[in-house]
């Protein structure tokens, strides 16, 4: 049996002295997609950063591909898991291709420069997110949605086994939201990439994730297959606003009252 991509035991996470996740267990295998849902400030990003090794948990253990994460070197961690951050801020000018190539950093030796193979990986990732024609453009000239897709291309260039995505759909128009979700789903099926995605759209989570983890903000969580966990009662409780389930020709949708 191969080790889970990520395995969490008794994890507790706190921010500013407030415990937002308390004593959670879960594991994610190859190709599995987990959606993380919750209100603003419920601790979704903090949880994601903890899983990424960017901050220390309050308690519990995280194993990445079978290894205790706290014992892994940062470079090794970066070869195994990639993170799409919520915001992309560029202080200095850089071209789109250069920015995507940054994803190769964990794989390059100290004195190595990006090879032709690295450039092919980056160009393929840019093509996959629809930025193939923009590789010479300065990142400062990109629109919000284009910058977001470039961040995703950087992550794909990194070729991690586990992707931790913080609101990958923000700034994207409807067409690109679906395209990005399909692209990620394809990576999960074909390459076995596991992903943990912070999302706000319940209906997209229902269709593009296998399991869901709901954060109630006070330490309580609920998790399970999307079909079980995402129901009107739980979601109403989660968002503190009444939601209703609509049946539209065989597939169901949640809409706010």
């Amino acid at each position, binding site marked *: 049996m191969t080790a889970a991509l990520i395995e969490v035991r008794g994890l507790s996470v706190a921010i500013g002295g407030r415990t937002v996740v308390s004593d959670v267990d879960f594991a994610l295998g190859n190709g599995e997609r987990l959606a993380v849902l919750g209100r603003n400030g419920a601790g979704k990003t903090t949880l994601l950063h903890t899983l990424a090794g960017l901050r220390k948990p309050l308690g519990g253990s995280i194993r990445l591909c079978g290894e205790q994460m706290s014992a892994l*070197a940062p470079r090794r961690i*970066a070869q195994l898991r990639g993170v799409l951050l919520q915001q992309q*801020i560029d202080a200095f000018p850089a071209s789109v*291709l*250069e920015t995507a190539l940054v994803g190769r*950093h964990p794989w390059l030796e100290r004195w190595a420069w990006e090879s032709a193979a690295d450039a092919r990986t980056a160009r393929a990732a840019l093509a996959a997110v629809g930025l193939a024609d923009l590789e010479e453009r300065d990142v400062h000239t990109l629109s919000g949605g284009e910058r977001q897709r470039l961040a995703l291309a950087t992550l794909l260039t990194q070729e991690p086994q586990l992707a931790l995505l913080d609101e990958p759909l923000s700034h994207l128009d409807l067409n690109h939201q679906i395209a990005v979700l399909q692209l990620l789903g394809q990576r999960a099926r074909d390459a076995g990439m596991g992903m943990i995605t912070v999302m706000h759209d319940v209906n997209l989570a229902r269709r593009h994730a296998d399991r869901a983890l709901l954060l109630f903000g006070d330490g309580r969580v609920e998790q399970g297959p999307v079909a079980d966990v995402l129901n009107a009662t739980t979601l109403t409780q989660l968002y503190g606003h009444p939601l209703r389930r609509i049946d539209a020709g065989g597939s169901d949708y949640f809409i706010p009252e």
Partner: protein
Amino acid sequence: MPSRRRALLVIAVLLLAALLSLAGALLVGSYTISPGEVWARLTGANGGIGGDIVLGLRLPRALAAFACGGLLALAGALMQVLLRNPLADPYVLGVSGGAAVGALSAMLFGLPLIVIHGGSFVGALAAMLTVFGLARGDGSWTQSRLLLTGVIVAAGCGAGVALILSVAPEQKLHSMLFWLMGDLSHAGSPWPALAVLAIGLALVVPLARDLNLLSRGDLVAHTLGVKVRGLRAAVYALGSLLTAVAVTTTGSVGFIGLVVPHLVRLTIGNDQRVLLPATALAGGALLVVADTLARTVIAPQQLPVGVLTALLGVPVFLYLLSRQPKGGRE
């Protein structure tokens, strides 16, 4: 697409420019010496007053200018990455302010040159350690906290400088002002500064790809496997030390540390693997040219070199900035 070949080409061109600037500095001056004679003296032929001027005066001064220009430009590039702020320069965190208080105090009491240099270095280190100690605070080490602490320490040092200037006797003011604007006529031996420049480059160039990531933000760097905290502390310490050595040698020459990294960035991009060595070479060459002009344009009187670095750099910088196409860099 970054490539090693392009990097080496850029470095070779700038190396040539640096050598030309040094050659110019040896040839030009109030005492005329032919190029052949300069070459003969450099390659070991004995002699005469020309030899004394080339080897004893012009060469050490030109090398000191090169070293300090390189140190300031490199330190500026490092501070811009550390603070992720294109407006950062080597002086923004108070290192030069501390050095100025130390050097001017020594001048005020009429102490010998070696004490002035010592006071400058001690002042720079004191400012650096103060900022480092205070900015760490809870260990979070954020850019804004570091920047604020540095700016406040620099402001305090500025007040100290103003105080010294206002109580200093008239006949000492001139040399104090020259120190503040940067002046190479009391530079002394260039070798310590050159050695520090070489060591500094040898330390940062292997870290250049990590610095590329750091310039994109701490979180980005962290997610891609950079040990952010250690790297930031190292960059801060190194940038401050390079600055301290430079201001100890020449006084606080302005402009080089802010503008040379930008000049290089506008020309070749922000890849630190090329930018850092290129910045050191370009900064060195610019200060050599500026100093050569400073001692020749209104000879026998000398100008503070800081005035000329700005007069040379500002038009070049504005030209490069206006030349940028709106759409992209290439």
